[in-house]
């Protein structure tokens, strides 16, 4: 008897984890809808201001008013139809009584406003659902539990909302980027002079251009070679499957974070940093490419390491091989070709980047291209561009051929 009493008590104990998930889901639905509606509102007001009133401002209401309105619309949306948030998170309102009654929906909409109060009782009561659900017999359930009936128009309101968001996004984009088709189609003749000069390159610069080209190619080469030396060992620390123990995990996290930060800073930015650091010339360009290549190669390499076949590793361990032998005989043979392939690919990118980096003063052919363009010496610039195009094309071709052979 005692035991049974106890068992019943246990059964009544609320399952907090389930509750928390339910609350979180409701909150996420609301958040999604409010964000979508605020976004819609902002775009709509921008488009109105821009295309009807001719001003460029975004919002005419104070932001807090917009949020309140968005919340209010979201509440209506969620209580009377299937909102965007409900659709994305797979939530539906389901009436567990006989039939759904518009008055119930209205009642739930009103009670919904004091729903946060029910959070307090929610954690202590034995019922699964919050009381505004229970009062109106309209329960927020998982979409999988209800069979969708014939779809009437308001049921797909989330589709309408998405379409509206799409249209307004395009309109806004047209507005903010100052798209001017008139200028695009009527003023082309002004560039005629540039095109004719560019297409008549100054061939007397062939020799000096070639020397600059060599600088650029070697910049890429140096950066790639030194990046390999750092990235290959680093990749072993950046592979999740090889990171073992607390220290391994810690190193893994640090390396990963460092890599993604370094990678997200563009090579141009690195070039500017190194220009300040070691003065103008090819060397800061090399350093910029070097740093960026390390991050990029480490990421590519370590992802390859993460997808190795663990079988050979297991076999070498079983045969009594030590850690070094496991790497040499179980891992390296699997990664050597992909590593070479990634490196070639990166060298290819580095040649292209090296010309761009020249523009900010990183040396090589890009730098003089930029200088000729600046003084409107377009036929000299044309010569540099010709050399760059031929080089980039051939290196692209060579690297693609070599990589095809490696696979």
């Amino acid at each position, binding site marked *: 008897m005692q035991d049974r009493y106890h068992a019943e008590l246990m059964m009544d104990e609320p399952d907090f984890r389930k509750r928390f998930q339910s609350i979180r889901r409701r909150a996420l639905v609301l958040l999604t809808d409010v964000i979508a509606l605020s976004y819609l509102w902002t775009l709509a007001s921008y488009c109105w201001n821009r295309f009807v009133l001719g001003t460029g401002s975004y919002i005419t209401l104070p932001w807090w008013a917009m949020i309140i309105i968005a919340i209010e619309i979201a509440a209506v949306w969620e209580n009377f139809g299937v909102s965007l948030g409900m659709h994305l998170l797979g939530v539906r309102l389901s009436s567990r009584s006989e039939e759904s009654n518009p008055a119930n929906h209205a009642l739930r909409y009103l009670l919904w406003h004091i729903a946060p109060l029910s959070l307090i009782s929610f954690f202590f009561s034995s019922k699964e659902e919050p009381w505004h659900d229970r009062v109106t017999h309209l329960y927020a359930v998982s979409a999988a539990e209800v069979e969708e009936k014939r779809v009437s128009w308001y049921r797909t309101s989330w589709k309408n909302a998405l379409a509206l968001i799409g249209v307004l996004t395009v309109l806004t984009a047209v507005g903010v980027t100052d798209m001017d088709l008139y200028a695009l189609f009527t003023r082309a003749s002004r560039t005629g002079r540039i095109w004719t000069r560019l297409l008549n390159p100054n061939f007397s610069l062939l020799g000096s251009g070639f020397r600059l080209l060599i600088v650029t190619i070697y910049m890429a080469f140096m950066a790639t070679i030194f990046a390999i030396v750092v990235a290959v060992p680093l990749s072993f620390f950046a592979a999740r499957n090889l990171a073992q123990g607390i220290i391994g995990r810690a190193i893994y996290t640090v390396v990963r974070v460092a890599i993604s930060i370094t990678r997200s800073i563009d090579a141009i930015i690195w070039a500017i940093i190194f220009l300040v650091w070691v003065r103008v010339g090819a060397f800061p360009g090399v350093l910029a490419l070097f740093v960026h290549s390390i991050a990029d190669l480490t990421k590519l390499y370590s992802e390859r390491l993460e997808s190795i076949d663990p079988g050979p590793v297991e076999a070498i361990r079983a045969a009594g091989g030590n850690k070094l032998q496991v790497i040499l*005989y179980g891992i390296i043979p699997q990664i050597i070709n992909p590593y070479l392939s990634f490196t070639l690919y990166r060298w290819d990118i580095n040649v292209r980047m090296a010309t761009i980096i020249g523009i900010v003063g990183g040396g090589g052919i890009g730098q003089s291209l930029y200088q000729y363009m600046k003084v409107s010496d377009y036929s000299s610039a044309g010569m540099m561009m010709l050399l760059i195009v031929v080089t980039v094309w051939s290196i692209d071709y060579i690297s693609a051929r070599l990589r095809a052979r490696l696979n």
Partner: protein
Amino acid sequence: MDEQLVIEHLSKVYERGEVLALNDVSFTVKKGEFLVVIGLSGSGKSTLLRCINRLIEPTAGKVFFEGVDVTAASSRELLRIRRKMGMIFQQFNLVKRSSVLTNVLAGRLGYVNPWLSVIHKFPREDIELAFKNLDRVAIRDQAYKRADELSGGQQQRVGIARALMQEPDLLMADEPVSALDPATSHSVMKYLEQMNQEDGVTVITSLHFLSLARRYGTRILALKDGEIVFEGLPSEIDEARFKEIYGDEAEHVEVS
């Protein structure tokens, strides 16, 4: 005959998923036995074999191999112990891009000077041994091919040759023929039988099919949900025992 392998109260809990894969398993294996481990998928066969050479770290229990406590061995001692335990895998576990010869020589890594192995230098005797073992499994002519150019049956023979390089006292095979067709299965099993009978190597192998277990095993161990549910001679497995091991719905599937 002395007891070569003693397993005492071995248990394994996988933290991820909180699976009790082995539950207090104890048994002994005598020198020269051909022990077959059977059981449904997920019964813990692979876990058991890998706990013996500590490819998987057991949660509790002890493993003694030729009187040495494997579970208490330092990592250096463990490498020595593993050399004497050959292992063969369901998926062959060859380095696909490397040559057959390189794969076979990898079985010798526990013996060679680690520093010489860095430059892929193996003693002449080891290379001769590799060819001898390739000869034994009748694929000497494939030595310089890439491992993934071979058929499944041939790849498993490379796996056997690699294990032979260890000159093992104990050979463990984890479903060595599950990826092979019936005829090829028998040819591979015959090599294991040969090693067992001619070289006196103790064999522990897990197998899916009871018919294969009956044909090759001198003793059978059946696992179910990580526990031993049967231990005895192949002939002792009758209909009732079979149902107990494989469940009521199971039918006999013969591999001839």
